[in-house]
């Protein structure tokens, strides 16, 4: 399904429905006035109303500069803003920066800030806040800051409404590092000179966004209300937003069904519940809005364990798995079968790689080649799988994996943990196979290379190269591509590295996951950018 935005109006299109496409094209051409006068009235944004959004799990805090979990982003994304936002194609859009320039050599990024912006406590927002956030706050609190800002030489503020980021080498991915969870602007007047994580205002977030903090009743809900002095005149449209904490997945689905809540996001709803909810007339399912996250799910493989260190064995596992089946029957059609390490919805993807079809015979051939003959029980090798403890869907995935690998003679032992145990085992390399999904942050230099480069083999650190895969050519290609300012050269380097990785299969890519955002049809513009419902909701309105 695709969503096309016309003057802040969303039309749902089924991919195959030419008539709807043609209608939308007409609307694009004519504006929304003449053709459908009745819908035009209803499509004018209306002020007022209360939005109820599912929040799960409960975030530990709401200060986006300190905590960037998905639930934190969902709430705090309404209160904090960054310099830029991104559309579904990851093109930058204005936010707190109204205009920006990048010098031809790719070294200087100049941002011109919106005027008349105030913090929720009334203090003016200036370039000083941006400099403070980039140079003092985030380096101390943000787990991705050190890699995002590694090439940053200086950040300066020539005047109150201009900020200049100077890099020491070209780094084209840098323009994507200004998404609100990567670079939330924090108020210098509150945090400067204090212990950021122990500031007394940490239970009362102060941002520049369209909604301000009202109250957080722990275990129950978080309430935000419209900020009356928001810098975009006439916005937000909503009076208030309640984020409702509903810890049980089945209860969440029921709450959407009974219209007690309007919006669910990420993995709030288990995929097997989605087809049923999609049938209901008052709900629609949107899969856009996760382009920055661009989650890629894979089987992570510990290369320190035999026979997992042999590329032929990893290829055999890839051939043994029917990834179309996984997509259609475990994730209920949500997602795309990946061809390689880079998600198709992000930047620098190529499809010119070897394609692995489902081919169990080829899997057994490869193992024959390796000398792994079946024993009396038909078992060629035995491996241990640590299922991802993130809900029912991943249990099903693990069970399918055990069956599929079992059919080519790989016996899979399962070992279950909870999320804390899983994190520790994977980070400390105490696993053989596990499922994982990792966000790509819109660009391979921000979210892909970290998984595969030798430099990032660091015991005890989650989401590093926990497999122990190391190929110096891959390192070299990623390093050169990250600082290559010429688009064609860069594309060639990334294509090459994708081909090598697909050949060697450091991990087995299963699915480019699509999260379903399920929205009550009375809510308009719930998803307008590449971070989906984590965005500000400044444009979101409710049909009264």
């Amino acid at each position, binding site marked *: 399904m695709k969503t096309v935005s016309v003057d802040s109006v969303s039309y749902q299109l089924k991919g195959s429905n030419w008539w709807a496409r043609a209608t939308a094209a007409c609307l694009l051409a004519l504006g929304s006035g003449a053709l459908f006068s009745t819908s035009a009235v209803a499509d004018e944004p209306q002020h007022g109303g209360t939005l109820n959004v599912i929040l799960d799990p409960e975030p530990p805090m709401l200060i986006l500069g300190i905590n960037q979990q998905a639930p934190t982003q969902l709430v705090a994304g309404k209160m904090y803003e960054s310099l830029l936002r991104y559309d579904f194609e990851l093109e930058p859009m204005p936010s707190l920066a109204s205009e920006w320039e990048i010098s031809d050599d790719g070294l200087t990024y100049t941002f011109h800030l919106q005027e008349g912006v105030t913090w929720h406590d009334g203090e003016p927002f200036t370039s000083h806040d941006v400099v403070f956030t980039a140079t003092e706050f985030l380096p101390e609190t943000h787990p991705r800051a050190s890699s995002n800002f590694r090439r940053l030489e200086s950040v300066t503020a020539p005047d109150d409404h201009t900020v200049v980021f100077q890099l020491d080498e070209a780094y084209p991915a840098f323009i994507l590092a200004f998404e609100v969870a990567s670079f939330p602007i924090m108020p210098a007047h509150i945090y400067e000179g204090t212990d950021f994580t122990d500031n007394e205002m940490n239970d009362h977030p102060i941002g520049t966004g369209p909604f301000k903090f009202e109250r957080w009743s*722990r275990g129950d809900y978080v309430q935000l209300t419209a900020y009356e002095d928001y810098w975009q005149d006439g916005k937000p449209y909503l009076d208030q937003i309640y984020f409702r904490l509903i810890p049980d997945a089945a209860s969440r689905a029921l709450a959407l069904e009974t219209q007690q809540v309007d919006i669910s996001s990420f993995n709030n709803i288990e995929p097997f519940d989605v087809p049923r909810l999609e049938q209901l007339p008052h709900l629609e399912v949107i899969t856009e809005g996760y382009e920055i996250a661009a989650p890629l799910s894979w089987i992570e493989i510990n290369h320190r364990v035999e026979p997992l260190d042999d590329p032929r064995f990893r290829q055999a596992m890839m051939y043994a798995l029917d990834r179309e089946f996984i997509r259609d029957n475990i994730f209920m059609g949500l997602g795309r079968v990946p061809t390689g390490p880079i998600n198709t919805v992000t930047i620098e993807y190529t499809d010119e790689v070897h394609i692995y079809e489902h081919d169990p015979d080829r899997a057994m051939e490869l193992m024959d080649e390796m000398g792994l003959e079946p024993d009396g029980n038909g078992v060629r090798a035995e491996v241990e799988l640590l299922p991802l403890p993130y809900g029912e869907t991943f249990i099903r995935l693990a069970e399918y994996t055990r069956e599929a690998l079992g059919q080519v003679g790989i016996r899979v032992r399962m070992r279950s943990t909870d999320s804390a145990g899983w994190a520790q085992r994977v980070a400390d390399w105490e696993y053989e196979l596990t499922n994982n999904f990792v966000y790509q942050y819109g660009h391979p230099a921000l979210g892909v290379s970290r998984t595969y480069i030798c430099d990032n083999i660091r015991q005890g650190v989650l989401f590093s190269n926990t497999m122990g895969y190391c190929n110096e050519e891959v390192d070299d290609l990623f390093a050169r591509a990250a600082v290559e300012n010429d688009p064609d050269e860069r594309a060639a380097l990334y294509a090459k590295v994708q081909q090598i990785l697909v050949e060697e299969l450091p991990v087995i890519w299963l699915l480019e996951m699509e999260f379903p955002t399920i929205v009550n049809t009375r809510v308009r513009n719930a998803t307008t950018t590449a971070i989906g419902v984590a965005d500000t909701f400044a444009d979101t309105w409710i049909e009264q």
Partner: protein
Amino acid sequence: MAKIGLFLARRLVKAAIILFFIVLINFALIRAAPGDPASVMAGEAGASDERYVELLRQRFGLDEPLHTQMFIYVTSVFQGDLGYSYRQGRNVSALILERLPATLLLTVTAFVFALAMGVLLGTLAAMKVGRWADTAITTLALISYATPLFWLGLMLILLFSVQLGWLPSFGFESVGAGFTGIDRMLDVAAHMVLPVLTLGLFYMAVYTRLTRSSILEIHDMDFVKTARSKGVTEGKVMVFHVLRNAILPVITFAGFQAGHLIGGSILVETVFAWPGIGRLAFNALLQRDYQVLLGVFVVTSILVLLFNIITDLLYTIVDPRIEVE
């Protein structure tokens, strides 16, 4: 009276010693689980680097040797300080106190409901033993006893919220409705119906069966026959002679259930999104928020110990033949 005073003093000293060992064992058990809060937070952030994780560990006080952490914790607990949750940035006692009222409201209501209905139904069944009323009550009790809580909860939601639309399916109250006074009480009561039923039906079944079998046992004893032959009415016989004797096993079990008033409702709180202490504990477990989890354990243990003492005292009131030592 002096006897009771002595009894209380001895039991309280014993309780303090037991509590000390509970705290020690809990501390050791929790730390035996793999993973720590810092690695959990890194996992949730979707990215991490060494310095970040190290900083978290330092802040959480996890860089101290384990026995030092244990010593610090145990001494502070016995000074009445339950510690600080670095994950949530708040005092543990504040977190627990904030969640306690919601849980108590739910569990005490369910407790009273279960006890009253259970004794009533059990008595009715015993009086009509072998007849259809007895069969109906016994069947109801059996079904309530055998049905898993979470399933029952979901079925109640499906029936009363989704199909009939009579009752809200989750939450403590209608947020944003701005109810006050009596309206707010009614609103909260409406939200309570399903979770109280879900939580209470199991114990109601237990009390029903206990009361029924216990009454049947006593029903034909000599002293009951004597009372009847003296001309005491059947109702008075039941209340003053039979029930008073039959109630002892029910009290034993009620004391046991009362000990679980806190923390015994994790499942129901999860299914109905009830903002109580059971969920606080469960989340703390998943997130390895050690201080919070230990804090909940301490509070729960104290309550269990307390209710044991109260139960023993109640025995002596109901049955004067039982004396405190």
